[in-house]
């Protein structure tokens, strides 16, 4: 017979017995909060299609996460908000007018293939939202590069247009190949360089969440203040893009930084914990690599925009960077 258990039971654990009270869900929530300004700007410019895309992506991601965990017989992890964040990030990286079934396929890919197959949060080698975007870009090239004009409902005729980067690319390509192009045909306006103000607030065509540089910078500042991210990756990423475009010619440097996915990539995508280096030195290398690859793709690649691919390639070399930049212990020779 089991003896009577008279003693009180205390929690037995290894030290430390104090905790800073930070948690994964709180971190994810902070990133979601930081994304709210750009989400609102996206909805402001692109209207209801943006709302639907965001809602569908988030709902699909959360559902997929729950179903995957159920299928794998693991604990449900939707409470850590990482699936919500992935859904939101994916939606913000899609054009507003994308057919919703494509957004659903992308979301399932992001969570199912890119994250849960590897074991869930913390195990994925590639940023789930970005790999889903890359997958969609290859699979649904047309819809993924059809951009709604900001305030498209006010324009009576064509509601879609090209992004500034795409316009620039076509123009530079044309200039480079055909000297027959009459000089003076292209002025700044027809090259598609928007005014600095429009680039800053986001009154340009593009993905839902990538257009408003000010809103993204606001989110970045919030993340830095909350100590969710460190300055290393965003600063080196943006600086590399800026310096490269100063020297490489082509589109103006400010336009290279403010349009396309560089801002959202540098602040929200490249800083994803799981897929970026853990050491400060590694983060500097990572940020530099992202910036450089992004610009190389923009200048020489087939796509007008290379931010997603640049980050994904750097994700792949992240373990190597971690190896290279192991910290030296205090007192070690």
């Amino acid at each position, binding site marked *: 017979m089991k003896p009577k258990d008279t*003693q*009180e039971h*205390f*929690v*037995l*654990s*290894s*030290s*430390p*017995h*104090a*905790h*800073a009270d*930070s*948690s*994964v869900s*709180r*971190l994810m929530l902070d990133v979601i909060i930081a994304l709210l300004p750009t989400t609102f700007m996206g909805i402001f410019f692109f209207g209801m299609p943006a709302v639907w895309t965001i809602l569908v992506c988030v709902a699909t991601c959360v559902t997929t996460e729950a179903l995957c965990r159920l299928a794998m017989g693991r604990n449900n992890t939707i409470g*850590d908000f990482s699936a919500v964040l992935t859904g939101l990030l994916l939606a913000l990286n899609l054009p507003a007018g994308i057919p919703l079934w494509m957004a659903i396929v992308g979301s399932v890919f992001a969570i199912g293939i890119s994250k849960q197959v590897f*074991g*869930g*949060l*913390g*195990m994925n080698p590639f940023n789930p939202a970005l790999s889903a975007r890359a997958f969609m870009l290859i699979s649904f090239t047309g819809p993924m590069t059809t951009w709604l004009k900001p305030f498209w409902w006010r324009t009576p005729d064509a509601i879609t247009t090209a992004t500034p980067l795409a316009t620039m690319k076509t123009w530079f390509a044309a200039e480079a190949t055909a000297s027959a192009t009459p000089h003076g045909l292209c002025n700044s306006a027809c090259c598609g360089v928007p005014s600095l103000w429009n680039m800053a607030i986001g009154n340009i065509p593009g993905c839902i969440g990538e257009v408003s540089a000010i809103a993204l910078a606001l989110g970045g500042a919030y993340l830095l203040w909350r100590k969710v991210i*460190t300055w290393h990756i965003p600063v080196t990423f943006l600086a590399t893009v800026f310096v490269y475009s100063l020297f490489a010619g082509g589109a103006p440097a400010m336009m290279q930084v403010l349009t396309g996915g560089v801002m959202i990539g540098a602040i929200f995508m490249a800083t994803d*914990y*799981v*897929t*970026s280096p*853990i*050491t400060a030195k590694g983060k500097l290398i990572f940020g530099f690599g992202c910036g450089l690859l992004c610009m190389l793709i923009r200048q020489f690649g087939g796509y007008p925009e290379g931010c997603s691919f640049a980050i994904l390639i750097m994700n792949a070399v992240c373990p190597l960077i*971690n190896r290279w930049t*192991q*910290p*030296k*212990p*205090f*007192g*070690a*020779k």
Partner: protein
Amino acid sequence: MKTVKSQFKFKGGVHPDYNKELARNQPIEKLATPAELVISMSQHLGAPAKCLVKVGDFVKRGQLIGEKNGFISVCVRASADGKVKAIEKRLGPAGGMADAVILDTTAKEEALAEGTETPTPSAPKGPILPPLDWKTATKEELLKRVEEAGICGMGGAGFPTNVKLSPPPGKRCEYLILNGAECEPYLTADYRVMLERAPRIRLGVEIMRKILGMPAVRIAIEANKPEAIKAMEEAFADIEGNVEIVVLPVLYPQGSEKHQIYATVKRIVPEPPALPIDVGCVVENVGTVAAISDAVELGEPLLERVTTVSGDAVATPKNILAPCGTKYSDLVAFCGGEKIPPAKIISGGTMMGFAVSTLDIGTTKTTSGLLLLSPSRVFQYSSQACINCGRCLRACPMNLNPAEISKAMEADDVKTAEDAHVMTCIECGACSFGCPAYRTITQFCRRAKASIRARMAAERAAAQAAAEKEKQKAEGAKAN
């Protein structure tokens, strides 16, 4: 003598809630000898003492009951008069089992009256050890006194003090650093000792300076203890020689030996097995220094110490001067019992202390605190995956990669952990403290260190056995 601010900040560190206000203004109170003492033979680092008494023996306060057993070992003396009720394996605060003498301190009068037992004839009267005049006594006499008083580091590790005070040949102590940082949350025992026993600390410093050959003295205190800094300034106002009070920034683990050496004299202790003496430093806890002065001037061995009993589940937090071997339950009772039922009992501070399963454990020379935490202060570790956020790297004062170590140990990969310098880990807990995934990083480090130590011991034993065999073979060959 001057007071300076520390100019050197080590990398990493964290800011836990200190919660020192609970007990910091409670003067040291002396606990009357409890009815039963559980005196462990393993109160220090190194080999447990060899028990010299048997069940039924009467012992006098200060009598030697455990003999030091090896070079890294410390003797144990009875902390009160009493009868040996039992000698058995008891659970220590750190979770290990060690021989302990259970002393019944109430039995003596009655037994003496009956005359059934004869008191030990050598029972000392008056001072337990003959007081020494430190000015005339030789260095060897002073060292011997530290050894026979059973003094070990009272900060937590319990390293034999006489060994620390005898630098190996060829090494000289240039700096004697007094550790008054007390960076552990809740604990205020050292703080109260600095406030109330400042002259004793000063005397202890002078004795230690004599033993170590007049090194420079640095008294390291965290900036959040202005009263202690003031008390030390007053006590050391007229001291001769190179003595400085170094005010350290408030940062955990400022009390760690290596980090204190860096913060005070900017020297870096190399990786283990290097010791502070390799960079000319000796670091000693303020309580230990006061104990040295008592042992020399008053002839009083280390029989009692100040322990902070605190936490939100205890009725009145107090700083208690109690005989070594006092049961935790007696300390809690002295504080008015439990205010609310505790969910966790910690022997030591919240960052490096040990969770215990029962209050039926005796204090030791290194018990600096006893904390009773209510359920609201207790968090649960989880087995969530590492999200690679890098907080542990930034927090680690040893500049290790705790994330990698914990991930390796999750897969039982001790080799990778060893390559990541896990043996350098000081188990301060800064990594686990900030981990948003609530991973047991520090515990993984402990596990890695334990298995590496076990492997090293096995290798040593194997090498020894092989050498024996070789020797036997050679002898056999000779005989033939």
